[in-house]
C-alpha cells in the first residue's frame, strides 16, 4: 500500500512561473512533512518542512501549504528558475519513529 502519493510525475514550467507539486497521505499519525530536492548524481537535500500545527510555511521562494483535514500538502516554488530544475520528493514521518516514507518524486524542468 502506497502511504504517500505524489503528483505530478514530471512538470515543465517557464522561468518566472509557479511550480506546484502535491502529496497526499493516508495515516493521520504522520506529524512531520519535509520536502527534499535532489540534483542528478547528488543525494536528496532538505528544502523545507512543516509540522501539522500550521497551515503554511514559507522560506524564500519555497512555500509548503498543508491541509490537515484533506491529508494533503503541497510545495509551491514561486518565480521558478532554471537552477530549480531537479527532482523533488515529499516525505512523511512520525516523529517518534524517525522513519521517513518518501513519495515517488517529481521531475521539475524550468525553461529559460
Amino acid at each position, binding site marked *: 500500500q502506497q502511504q504517500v502519493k505524489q503528483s505530478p510525475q514530471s512538470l515543465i514550467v517557464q522561468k518566472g512561473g509557479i511550480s506546484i507539486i502535491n502529496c497526499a497521505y493516508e495515516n493521520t499519525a504522520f506529524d*512531520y512533512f519535509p520536502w527534499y530536492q535532489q540534483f542528478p548524481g*547528488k543525494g536528496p537535500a*532538505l528544502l523545507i518542512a512543516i509540522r501539522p500545527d500550521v497551515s503554511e510555511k514559507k522560506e524564500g521562494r519555497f512555500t509548503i501549504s498543508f491541509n490537515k483535514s484533506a491529508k494533503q500538502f503541497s510545495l509551491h516554488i514561486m518565480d521558478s528558475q532554471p537552477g530549480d530544475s531537479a527532482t523533488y520528493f515529499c516525505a512523511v514521518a512520525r516523529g517518534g519513529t524517525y522513519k521517513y516514507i518518501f513519495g515517488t518524486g517529481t521531475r521539475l524542468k524550468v525553461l529559460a
Partner: protein
Amino acid sequence: EAGVVQSPRYKIIEKKQPVAFWCNPISGHNTLYWYLQNLGQGPELLIRYENEEAVDDSQLPKDRFSAERLKGVDSTLKIQPAELGDSAVYLCASSPGGLPDTQYFGPGTRLTVL
C-alpha cells in the same frame, strides 16, 4: 562542515559477486541510515542505527544484505551475493537526533550488477 561521505561513488560488478559500500556520517551525528533508491523512485529505508545499535532493520533483506557500524561512527553495507535486481543507488544519511529528525544525505553509491 563536511557532509556525509560515501565511497565508492560507482561500482560495477558481475552477479553473484560480493560488494561493500562505506559511509562516514557528519561528525557528531549519532543516527545513521542506509537507503535504497531505485531509478525514478524515492529512497526506501534499509536500516537505521543509533550509535552502534541497529534499531530498525526490518526492511533489510537479511539473506544477502548485512550492515555494521563499529564504534558508532563509520558504517559498511554489504551485499553477498549480488543479484541483477540489486542495481540501484545506495544512499547513506545521518542525523543529529532530536525532533524533528532532519536527515542529511550523502551522494550515494550507484551499483550496477551485470
